[in-house]
Structures are given as structure tokens and as C-alpha cells.
């Protein structure tokens, strides 16, 4: 059973990812969104193995397994992991949807993500390979 504190910590990311999924699937279709998720999960997993616990299918996204892992290991850097995931996702999304449409989605998501310390929706997102943990 996941505690309330952990649950709340993960919930906001899950809400954001669900919104991202729905907004992208509207334009790209579920197959392309699944492919995009698979790609970004792979990239982020090179640094944060736990992202592989993210569950996604035609119906959407679930962070339940990540929450359970966080319960076992509260030191898990989930914030960094999700920030990197979202930034990379949005970066590829811009190429797929065109920058204008991606900007609309980015604005909508930014409202949801206002409480985050960092802005994963900064224009263009973090570049591939950038590592905010460096130094």
C-alpha cells in the first residue's frame, strides 16, 4: 500500500503525464504516442532505470509501480527523472505536431505543472544528453 505522502508526490506527475498522453493522442493517434513513450522511456532509462516501471497502454498512463518503488526507496530521484522525461517528450512532440500546436499543448501543461520547481516545458526542452545532475 502506497502512503499518502508518496501517493501525493507521484500523483501530480501522473496527472501531467495523463494530460500529455491525451493531448498528444488527439493529434497523433494511440500507436504513435505509444511509440513516443517507448522511445523516451528508453532514453531516460539509460540514466534512471526506474522509469521502466512507468505503465502505458492504449488507455493511458499509470505511475502506480513507480509509487510502490518510491515507497521502498524514498531517496529515488523521481523529480529529476520525471522532469527529464517530460522535457524530452515535449521536445520530440514539437517535431511531430509542428511548433505552433506543440506550443498550445505546452501552455496547457504548464498551467498543470505550475507547482513544479523547474519548468520542464521551457521552449525546446532540455537537449538530448543534457544532464542537470552534472556538477
Amino acid at each position: 500500500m502506497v502512503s499518502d505522502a508518496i501517493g501525493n508526490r507521484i500523483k501530480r506527475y501522473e496527472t501531467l503525464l495523463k494530460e500529455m498522453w491525451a493531448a498528444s493522442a488527439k493529434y497523433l493517434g494511440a500507436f504513435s504516442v505509444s511509440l513516443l513513450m517507448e522511445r523516451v522511456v528508453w532514453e531516460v532509462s539509460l540514466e534512471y532505470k526506474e522509469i521502466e516501471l512507468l505503465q502505458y497502454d492504449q488507455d493511458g498512463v499509470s505511475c502506480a509501480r513507480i509509487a510502490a518503488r518510491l515507497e521502498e526507496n524514498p531517496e529515488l530521484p523521481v523529480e529529476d527523472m520525471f522532469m527529464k522525461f517530460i522535457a524530452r517528450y515535449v521536445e520530440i512532440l514539437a517535431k511531430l505536431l509542428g511548433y505552433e500546436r506543440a506550443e498550445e499543448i505546452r501552455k496547457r501543461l504548464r498551467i498543470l505543472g505550475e507547482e513544479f520547481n523547474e519548468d520542464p516545458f521551457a521552449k525546446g526542452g532540455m537537449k538530448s544528453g543534457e544532464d542537470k545532475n552534472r556538477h
Partner: protein
Amino acid sequence: MHPNLFLNISVRYWQDFQDTLAKAINANIYIFDANVTPFSHFSLPVEICQDVNGGKEPRDNKCMDFYKLACASLGEKDTLVCPYGIKLCAYRLGSHTQKIGYLIIAPAKHTNLSDREEEIAFVTKAQNVYRTVNEVFNAILERNLLGLRRLELNSIYEISRLMTSIIELDKVLELITNSLIIIYQADLCFIGLREGDKIRIAHGKGVRGSNLLIGKEWPLVHPVIEQVSSQIEPTILHIGELKGLPGFNDVEIISISQVIIYPLWTALGLVGLLGIATPASLDDIGYRNLQIYTNFAAVALANATLIRRLEKEATTDFLTGFLNKRALQDVLAVELQRAARYGYQLSVIFLDIDGFKAYNDTYGHLAGDVVLQKVAELIKNSIRVTDIACRYGGEEFLLILPGTKGEDAARVADRIRRSVENYPFPHRQITVSLGVTSAKKNDSVDMLLARADQACYQAKELGKNRIYLDPS
């Protein structure tokens, strides 16, 4: 090989490993990436480095200049002395073709290694560390690369299954461009379909301006297109070579240096071209995987194009280019539903060419076909682009006018009547009779058509070359 794979190694985890190694050999270790940017921190605090740099990595300009110069000219390994007198061992990580970065190993305490034995022991230790670190990095790179290949192959497998089940051209185009951008991180991906003697760009995605390529036409005789389409293998073109093609001036090409263009061949011939610009050059396996993908794409596009053509031919009248009677039923049903849902008027005009049988019998079928084509052209010129024209039968036409009430439709009908009457057809004057009616609540397709037909019959009965507006 992807240039960023190295940077995807978690620095946090790497630093733990490096620090443990440094403690075990009692020497300081730090790493620069291929651009001589610090990758990891100093493992052990070195007094002089702390004093000069005040932190965990070289920041002092003298230090950074030294490392930039030293690494740039470094062969496989070298023993160097830093500007502050620390003797250190430097190694290049990776290979000549795949430079990963640089490993620096320095004594943990300030020493100039003046003692020969001390120096030999230190260099031996450093050499062992280098071998270990290099092996670990290569293993990580191999693992990353295998992961990427697995991702590529899985995606190609899934897409190939999907593409054989999708027949709508727009969906096939979307699926191909999306997946190439996702799998290969393409900055630009476009597909051009062959239309006779030209390539018409049907889809384009990626950097800003990529979508402006859509609709552009490139003649097959254009030197670049001729070069690409005369081969089986893909052609790699520098972006400058593509600038002469319509649309490329609008593409934001800052991040693009070259584009790989695949001619899409199937048993039916050249279907089109697929262009892709990836941020990193592909290795042999990458090219082969992409070739497999484009082979599937070519077959899927050929199928979808063929089906679209067949569908169009099945619903189009060959002689006039209007919808045929088979398509009319479906189109009219949709328009009736739409009118009912949004509450707007819908009118139809039934047109019959007067005395057409006699004209045909007297002057021949070819002359009759000319009349049909010309009447169709006059109709087309008299209606809006939102109106729908169908060839209903031999010399009968039906026009659907969404959002138009009966009186306005009658005016359109009379405009058509006059334009036919005044056109100088060969042999003799041609006239038409037209019946006009509007859709009523709960009308079916058959009910509406029957009223329009009846109205046209009335126009004939009243002496031809006239219109009749159904009063009901």
C-alpha cells in the same frame, strides 16, 4: 553511432564508481567528455587544485586552457605536467573513430613524482585504471547501442504489422513520418508521391517549415530528382544540393546538414521518395534497419495509393469528372443528415438535356460525349465549390446545394439553363430542363430524388428549356 549515448550514462552512479576506484588506488581521477567539458568531479581533494579551482572540477582558466590543448593533441596516452606542477597521466577513452572522452589520473597528494620508482608505480597503477574505465565505458556504450537497436527493430516490427492493415493513404503517411521522427530522432522527414512525371510532396514533418514542403511539386527531370530516382540505393545529399527544389528555402535547416533520400520502389515501379535528416550519422546496421523500414513503407504507400485511386474511380464519372450515381446515394444521405442536424436548408436540381437521344442518333456518340462534357463544364462554372454535382444517368445530372433554399436554387438552375442555351454547341442549339426541390423534415434520399425527378418532368411537360420549382 549516436554521439549522445555517452552522455546518457548517469553521472551520479558513475561518480560513486569512480570515487571507489580512486580510493582503492589512492589517486585522483576525473573525466572530460569528447568536447573537453568536465564530465565527472575530482574523486579526491587535492590541496593545490582546491586552492586554484576552489571546487570539485577544473575551473581556473589556466587549467582549462591546459586541458583543452593537451586533450586535443593527445594520442592514446601521455604523461603531462599541469600549469601548477602536478604530474598526471592522460588517456583518450574510446577509439579513433568513436572518441568518448579523456581520463585524467593524478597523484592524490602534491608530488612531482621525482622518484623514478614512485613514478613507475604510479604510471602502472594509472594504466590499470585506464583499462578498467575504458572497458566499462565501452560496455555501457555497447549496451546503449543494443538497446537502441532493440527499440528500432521492435518499432519496425510493430509498424510493419500495422502498415499492412492500414489502407487509408493519409494514415499511412502520418504513421511513416511519425515513426521515423520518433525512432531516428529525425529533424526532417518528408514523403513525395509520384504523380506522372513529377513528385508531389504529400507529407512533411520535423523542424520549423517542414510542413511548407507539402504540396510542392518536383519534376522527375530535375537533376537532383533524376539522380535519386534513377537508383535503387538511397542517396545522401548535402542540404545545399536540395536548395534548388521548391519549398526547401522555407525549411529551417540550421540543425540539418544532410538528407538521406530513399527512392521507394515496388513491383509497380517508383512510388515516390522518402527523405530523412537525422542529427547523427547512422552506422551500417542503422542504414540497413532504415532500408528495411522504407521497403515496408514503399509497399504500404503503393497499396494505399492504389486503393485511393480505385476508390476515386469507383465514385467518379469518367466522362465528366462528376460523382457517379453510386456515390450520389451516400453523399446525398450525408448532406441530408447534416442539414437536419444543423438546421439549414438543402436543395437539389435535377437536370435533363432536351432531345439528347436525337442529337446522339443524328451526330454520333462522340458528338454526344462532347455535349455531355461541355454541359458538365457549364454546370461547374455556375455552382459554388461547396455544391456537389453528379452525373445521374445518360443525359441526366443532379446537383446538391447545401445551405440553399428553393428560390435561390431556382436562380442557380436558371443560370445554368441560360448558359447552356447560349453556348454555341456544334451542329445545333442545346437546351436543358431543370427541376428544383428542397429537402423537407424526415425526407429520405429516395423521396427527395423522386420529387426532383418529378419537377424536371414538369419542366419538360411545360415545353422544355425551362425550370420548374417544386411547390410542395
